[in-house]
């Protein structure tokens, strides 16, 4: 179906006799459906369905290594120190600030278009890392190798990063779906 997509996207507005839906339907039917004849036929169009292998990036996780070596990091009985409390408060302030900023930026109606391309790229990579970190964090929380204080800090940190990314997106007018990279034959990054 990727071939179909390339064809449809290559249309110029003057070529569109039908609307997009009818066009996609027409191409789908003519190329993929309809009766097929066996007989004295000169040609059969090659099966035009090109399948791209979606290779996913596999990253080994620290948790797996921990399981194998039998180590258990972290002390489940740790209480919140005053340092922890200060850190937690700081994170909560950051989250609040970002939450307050986003509507302000939207109201000022000024998404900045300059350097948007670069911002998109940077944010995409940061978002990828954030997602990986989040997965890893989940694994550890499930394993029970973290204390409640550590879970608190971890959760707030991840939430703060998420909100910050959202804030920067708003500044540059970048939608969630745009945070992705097309790696060609490898498929999309995320």
């Amino acid at each position, binding site marked *: *179906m*990727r*071939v*179909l*997509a*390339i*064809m*449809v*996207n*290559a*249309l110029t507005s003057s070529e569109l006799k039908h609307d*997009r*839906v*009818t066009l*996609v*339907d*027409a*191409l*789908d*039917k*003519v*190329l*993929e*459906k*309809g*009766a*097929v*004849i066996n*007989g*004295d*036929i*000169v*040609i*059969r*169009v*090659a099966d*035009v369905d090109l399948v791209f292998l979606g290779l996913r990036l596999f990253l080994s996780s620290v948790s797996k290594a921990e399981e194998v070596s039998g180590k258990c990091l972290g002390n489940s009985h740790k209480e919140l120190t005053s340092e922890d409390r200060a850190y*937690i408060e700081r994170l*909560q302030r950051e*989250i609040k600030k970002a939450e307050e900023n986003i509507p302000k930026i939207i109201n000022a109606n000024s998404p900045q278009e300059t350097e948007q391309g670069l911002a998109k790229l940077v944010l995409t990579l940061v978002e990828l890392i954030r997602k990986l970190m*989040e997965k890893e*964090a*989940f694994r550890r*929380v499930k394993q029970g190798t973290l204390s*409640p204080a550590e*879970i*608190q*800090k*971890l*959760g*707030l940190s*991840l*939430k703060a990063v998420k909100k910050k990314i959202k804030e920067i997106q708003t500044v540059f007018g970048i939608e969630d*779906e745009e945070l992705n990279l097309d790696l060609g034959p490898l498929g999309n990054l995320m």
Partner: protein
Amino acid sequence: MNGLYLYCIRERMEGAPAISSQGMDGKGEVFTLAYRDIEAVISPVSLAEFASEEIQHKAQNDLPWIKDKALIHEGVVEEAIQKRGGGLFSLIPMRFGAVFNARAGIEAMLAKDYLKIVQVLDKIRGNQEWNVKVYLSDKALLERMIKTQNTAIQEKEKELAAMPEGMAFFMEEELKAVVAGESAKVMTQLVETIFDRINSNAVALVKNRILEKELTGRRDPMVLNTACLIPATRIEAFKKGIESIRRDIQPQGLVIEIGGPWPSYNFCGY
């Protein structure tokens, strides 16, 4: 050297209008080749342009060519299905790319497959093909509906409200996963119900592949893609049925769209 491109096979009737669309090569006439009470709709094409390796090469490197030719194909079929003065021929559309060396090959094919062809034409006659597609346009609405009906989820939400923010972050993600799982289950049931309801007005019904967003050009994902064969006499009932489904699925965040009539691309295999 010229070959013959085959667009479709239809029932043969006196007084069928000549087909004015240009054929595959942009200049040749489109004409018919008769055999008993059926006929093939064909036009001359250059064998050099339509040779096997050429087409395979184009499928890799010249997609606009394939697209243009596919649209010409559909244009000829759309015209070939029209009877003079309204009404439609019973017609089997071919898949793109059937080219014969000579008339003799087409005649031989029509003779050999005559009974099967007639069987399919009889099945199609008096029926129209329509597509029905369903999209999930408001995922949030569906999820809200699921939450109100699921006490386990409501319990978890209460727990979450009582937690400190950092821990709540993880519980939230877990909850999202649970809700997504429930949504998938509910969606499957809804889709099956819709499918059964459409079936009640159809002579035949097939599920087709879900089309990706890059094809539909829409933000909302497709959840059902069907083609149905509806008797012309039941078209109004079919459309009313769709309207009724539309009303029923709206509170669940789903929208339904239909397209047609189409030549019976999905119901002409033999």
